[in-house]
């Protein structure tokens, strides 16, 4: 495998394998495709658009990546009506007002000696203009991420909840890692942050945004991967219980339900079972704890009816 640019010291981003190991140390079991996406994002300097149903670990991936790279995680939660004054920057209006008042007081002495209006204006121009300057800039998540000296991990969560207008506004920030502030000019990132955008597909994202991102779809994991994830997340769990509970969840996923349980639900369920000091699954226990796994009443009823059957099939296998 050819690594990217030669580096002075080894970095966790050197190869896909080191990424997998590093993420595992941060408590995130990544498939090869996930690790490759992170590798490409770092080397091509492009944001990653992560899609997948709720609870497959989209946000977790960003958190683990930040831990892996030892960079600060800056998070921007999207919602309808989010605009640039909340995402990018805001002026500190109060301080600006105070500043003008101070300025007024100082103006008299400064301009006192001027013989006529023209030279007074000249002197005025000589005074540094602080009103619209970075001192009065209140940085919001996007700007904060761009200004981090050593780089950062920027998580733009649930981008699909924001408006289309905000999406268009993100384009500049994501493609060139810079933002334009009309009063100041362009602020460019010294070190481009690693950007994760997550989406639950509430609405279709625009093509322009998709084009600028690497696309990563995290599917529900297979049995082996999920067992490893549970092992990493719930350290105290016994092997046999872990295997059978993951097998049960996998079987539930083949059913036609309103909301399939995802990884976070499996992990929660495993935690509950550990807390209850369970050694093996039985029908009553599953029935009592099913509400951890399933979030809709009709799903619970549908699965409840089939618990004994599912458990006995597992016992045979």
């Amino acid at each position, binding site marked *: *495998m050819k690594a990217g640019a030669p580096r002075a010291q080894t970095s966790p981003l050197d190869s896909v394998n080191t990424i997998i190991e590093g993420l595992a140390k941060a408590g995130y079991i990544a498939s090869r*495709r996930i690790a*490759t996406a992170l*590798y490409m994002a770092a080397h*091509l300097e492009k944001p990653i658009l992560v899609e997948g149903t709720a609870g497959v670990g989209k946000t977790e991936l960003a958190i683990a990546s930040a831990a892996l790279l030892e960079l600060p995680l800056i998070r921007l939660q999207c919602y309808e009506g989010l605009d640039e004054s909340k995402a990018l920057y805001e002026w500190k209006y109060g301080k600006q007002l105070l500043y003008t008042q101070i300025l007024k007081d100082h103006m008299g002495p400064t301009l006192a000696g001027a013989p006529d209006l023209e030279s007074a204006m000249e002197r005025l121009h000589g005074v540094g203009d602080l009103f619209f300057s970075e001192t009065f800039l209140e940085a919001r998540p996007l700007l904060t991420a761009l200004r981090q000296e050593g780089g950062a991990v920027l998580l733009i969560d649930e981008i699909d909840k924001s408006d*289309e207008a905000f999406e268009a506004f993100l384009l500049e920030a994501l493609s060139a890692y810079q933002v334009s502030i009309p009063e100041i000019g362009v602020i460019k990132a010294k070190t481009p942050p690693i950007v994760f955008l997550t989406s639950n597909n509430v609405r279709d994202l625009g093509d322009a945004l998709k*084009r600028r991102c*690497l696309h990563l779809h995290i*599917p529900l994991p297979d049995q082996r991967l999920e067992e490893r994830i549970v092992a990493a997340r719930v350290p105290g769990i016994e092997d046999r219980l872990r295997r059978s509970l993951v097998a049960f969840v996998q079987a539930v996923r083949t059913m036609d339900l309103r909301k399939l349980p995802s990884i976070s639900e499996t992990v929660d369920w495993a935690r509950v079972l550990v807390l209850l000091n369970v050694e093996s699954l039985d029908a009553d226990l599953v029935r009592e704890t099913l509400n951890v796994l399933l979030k809709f009443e009709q799903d619970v009823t549908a699965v409840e009816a089939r618990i004994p059957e599912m458990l006995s099939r597992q016992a045979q296998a």
Partner: protein
Amino acid sequence: MQRALEDFLRALRASEVPVSPAEAIDAHRAIAEVGFADRTLLKDSLVVTLAKSAEEAERFDACFDTFFARDEFPGGSAPAAGPDVPTPAGDLARMLLEEDAVGLAGAMEAAAARAGVSEIQTGAQRSLLTRRMLDGMGLRELESLINTLRAAGGRDEEVAAALTERRGALFAQARAFVDRQAELYAAQTGRQLRERLLARRKLTAVEPEDFRAMEALVRKMAKRLAKRYARRRHRAMKGRLDVRKTVRKSLGYGGVPFDIVWKRRTVEKPKIAVLCDVSRSVAAAAQFLLLFLYSLNEVVERLDAFAFSDRLVSVNDLLDDEKVDDAIELILARIGFRPTDYGQALADFCALQEAALDHRTTVIILGDGRSNYANPRLDLMRRIEDRSRAVIWLNPEPLTYWGQGDSKMDAYRRFCHVAKSCNTLEQLERIIEDVLRTYTPA
């Protein structure tokens, strides 16, 4: 390798993974990072750069696997002909005799490039291209060589026999190669052609074997409609300054317009009521009308759906709760394939829905207007027209049949804002789109 990537991108486009020039550049950059050596790594890094949705990623995986599949040439065993046999002229014969797998594969790729195999458009071109490719590899020379060797007799005849046998294997290889190329590049053009034809086929004349394709098409169209339609609704959100309200609010701040209020155009969601005829006379088209109704129900928020033949029932629950096949089957079982009675259907509709009809409701009727000489209840039709925003009638029969026999279409059309003949999917889509644009509040 540049060439290989270009071909691959073309294959991707053919399998409905759109790749823009900018993405092609990204792909080149990605490859510059990872190289060609590790195939899994190559695949993973290309999929994150090129595929833009989960479905595209799936299609990408399939395309990648087909594209990089290569048949192994049989080879490795000792040459069959003895050393005293003069190696026959021609590279092809030599490679065949020596079972030079790498050389043969290379020659085949080169000949394929010369013959333009990757430009393949339809499956019908396969034989021609295979032939052309083999000719490019020197098949003619090989054949004349076999003939001379056979005529010479003795050891030469044995060599000729060996060559003939391997020529057969070569044919099979070449054929498989072209098949794979056809699958990569021509499958999609073929499908697009078929879809275009299907969209124009009369709903009543769709062959059973085309049902699946038709269903997929209907769903695609409904989705496309929904997308355009959602975008329009968003645009109405922009506001203008509401001076009155702003001034009113400014009183609280001593006349300073601190809170600025924008005018909001209230976006009225359109209401659509669809009446779908599932009687005997339109039996052939009913399936697709229902399918369209089902897909529309998924995308339009306030849709009241009804199906009727000799009476009318609401099918909202079925459309909402059942899967598409079950829903259609249940509807047809409950009410389908009976003689139509439009008068009764309209009466039922008024009883169920009249109170809910208002100036925002668009009523769409899908049916042939053939009422089996029963009372057409034109009075009810007038009431519906009066109460609703628009009445639209889509009739699968051509215009010339309207009013003939038991068709009451001529009478009904007077109460419709639009009455159109619509017997292909393409027309159906166009008309529904017009309806959404024109007759629903923006």
